[in-house]
């Protein structure tokens, strides 16, 4: 049975009825059409679904939408400035070829933003460590690490 749910998504309060068993990621994609958050696995391992929940990176496939009641959720759509330009971390991924197919990229960018907010000047080892929960099938991670290093620098400006 659906229950009422209200939460703040990318700065906008949304009130929708959901079934309690709806995962946050399905709620974002199916109910709100925010398909930038990807689903790469069924086992909470790949990190493609990473969003910020009250400012902390979480796997939205491993959180029930109802657990996020009253919370603030930021998705990849929400980090882009209103003028349509890119967030500095997104720009760094483009500039440094931090993506190939791009499937993992929204999750990578959200994890990277969470990392830099907690550690403004991460070194390469810390970046690799922080990406423990984000899998990429294409890049071999090297350029992702470079992109996050660069993105961290621009985020400081």
């Amino acid at each position, binding site marked *: *049975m659906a*229950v009422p749910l209200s939460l703040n998504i990318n700065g906008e309060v949304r009130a929708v009825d959901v*079934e*309690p*068993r709806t*995962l946050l990621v399905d709620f974002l994609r199916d109910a709100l059409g925010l398909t930038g958050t990807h689903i790469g696995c*069924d*086992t*909470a*391992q790949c*990190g493609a679904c*990473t969003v910020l*929940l009250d400012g*902390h*990176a*979480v*796997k939205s496939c*491993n*959180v*029930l939408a*109802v*657990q996020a*009641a009253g919370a603030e959720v930021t998705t990849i759509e929400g980090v882009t400035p209103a003028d349509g330009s890119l967030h500095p971390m997104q720009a760094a991924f483009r500039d440094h070829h931090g993506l190939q197919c791009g499937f993992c990229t929204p999750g990578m960018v959200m*994890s990277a933003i*969470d*990392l830099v907010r*907690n550690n403004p000047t991460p070194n390469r080892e810390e970046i690799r460590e*922080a990406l*423990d*929960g984000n899998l990429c099938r294409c890049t071999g991670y090297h350029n992702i690490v470079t992109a996050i290093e660069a993105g961290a620098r621009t985020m400081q400006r």
Partner: protein
Amino acid sequence: MYEFAFHRAADLDAAASLLANADDGRVIAGGQTLVAAMKLRLSAPSDLVDISGIASLAGIRVERGAVVIGAMTTHAAVAASADVIRAIPALADLAGTIGDRMVRNRGTIGGSVANNDPAADYPAAVLALGATVITTQRSITADDFFTGMYETALEPGEIITAVSFPIPRRAGYAKFPNPASRYALAGVFVADFETGVRIGITGGGGGVFRDAAFEEALTRNFSPAAIEGLSVYVESLSGDLHASAEYRAHLVGVMAKRAVTAALADR
């Protein structure tokens, strides 16, 4: 995932009565294990009682020689806590190695301890530090709390509210993580108290356990050399597709030495 009814408990009394009125109710804290298990239909509760909004379950405090950590405290918060880093740095280190960054932002100490996964990290610290698990009904010592694989002394409806860790002279944790899951193939927490050394071993068997031979050797001489060549009984460990029992037994010895080295570096 099967259907269930979802309730958000305003306080512990409300949580208790919601659980009492459910057919097969479960408490949900961060949900990092439970939601995954429900997705796989390994778990199918009739009701979920969300305790994340209960203010009394939050926070970390240091009092009378102990660090008391509220049940809803996330692994990330423990890893970053200046109080924990000062009082029991090994505990902060341990919290910082659980799962991955996103899991640590969401998973809680109460959930991990209540779940008692045989390869989880926290039970090793709870047992080695001789912590007390505080619940809605009583206080349970670590030696009485963990009763087997995924089994604890918790009664139906009983909720962990905090875990109180005595502050040791020094402590260390070392684990060999499964490279995919980050669960421990073998993890060893050593804690050196005035009264002697305690050791908690996770990842190897049917649940976290202590080992008298390691404890006696380290109480006599707190150094990696003192436990050179010591191992645990292979029979007390399990083998699976990730590692054989023999390999795990070997890892326990190696991790124990690393944990002692870490403790010695600590102070």
